[in-house]
């Protein structure tokens, strides 16, 4: 632990950086997939009626 401490704070090891990057990419991909899924579901459930709104 001590060797990880730096005067500017905690310095991540290469392995920790790699894993954090992998987690970040996984979260980004999951969020992207959810956006696409919710869009497609909206189209399927509402269809053209998505444009029909009471004014």
């Amino acid at each position, binding site marked *: *632990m001590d060797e990880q401490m730096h005067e500017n704070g905690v310095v991540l090891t290469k392995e*920790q950086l790699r*894993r*954090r990057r992998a*987690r970040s990419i996984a979260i980004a991909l999951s969020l992207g997939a959810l956006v696409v899924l919710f869009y497609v*579901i909206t189209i399927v*459930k509402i269809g053209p009626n998505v444009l029909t709104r009471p004014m």
Partner: protein
Amino acid sequence: MSLATEGADLSGPATAGPSRARLEPSIAGVEDYIELMKPRVMSLVVFTAFVGLLIAPVHVHPVIGFASLLCIAIGAGASGALNMWYDADVDAVMKRTHDRPVPKGRILPGEALAFGMTLAVGSVVVLGLVANWAAASLLAFTIFFYVVVYTIWLKRWTPQNIVIGGAAGAFPPMIGWAAATGGIGAESLLLFLIIFFWTPPHFWALALYRTDDYARARIPMLPVVSGRAETQRQIMLYSLLLVPVGAAPWLLGYAGVLFGGTALAAGFLFVVLAWRVMRPSDLKSGERAAMRLFAFSILYLFLLFAVLLIDSRLSAHFGIGYAG
């Protein structure tokens, strides 16, 4: 004080996590979070839910069906994560589970809890919005049943833990059916019963092979509490019950002869393997017989549900197969 923590040596891996909580950045990889969701259990859940969804007498748009199954899978993953959060002390002392991310300290208990709760709430809400609130309520109840009733309450308290707790694993086809129909039908109740009666011999076969592991973790599995002979007797009893229950969709006219024949043949083989578990020549051959039954039980469930799906598709397209 739980049974599992009494006398269990938790000075090793299980306590590695909290110290990291204060000092070190996370070392969890994506694969650790995937492991937290118990992907192998998830595959069985998704498959049985898929069959429940497809044999329902209501057409579901493929996108809605896919999204519903995704929600059920994520709900199952949430259950797995919450189970690993609560059971980290038990997992740490069992050979089969000591490498899991929480006891090894790769994921902190708090991280597992937050991950599990997020997935649980997300999967239930999205299933409610995508399919219907009956299916979402069933999914919420299933997660509650697995985490609270089975993991927190029954698992460390009674040898009947997996008999009652087995209901949690039996709900997915009902959720799939409910996602399509918005309710509960007799057919989906039969699918529930098949998995419910399948669970005890499946888990007790594993427990016979892992008796020392469960005893070390102080989990009151049937072989630990009542001994091998009683467990073998109970396995045989449930295997015999499983034969008519497995064939019930055909016997009651909800499936055709293809399913009926398969269910009876597979059920007969199940009983034969249970008999071999009951009559071993020595401990080693007994353990081998138990592992064979455990492996076959997984195949049995996949086979029954796969043939039920094929049978229902044949009936839908060609109007054949139904007994009634």
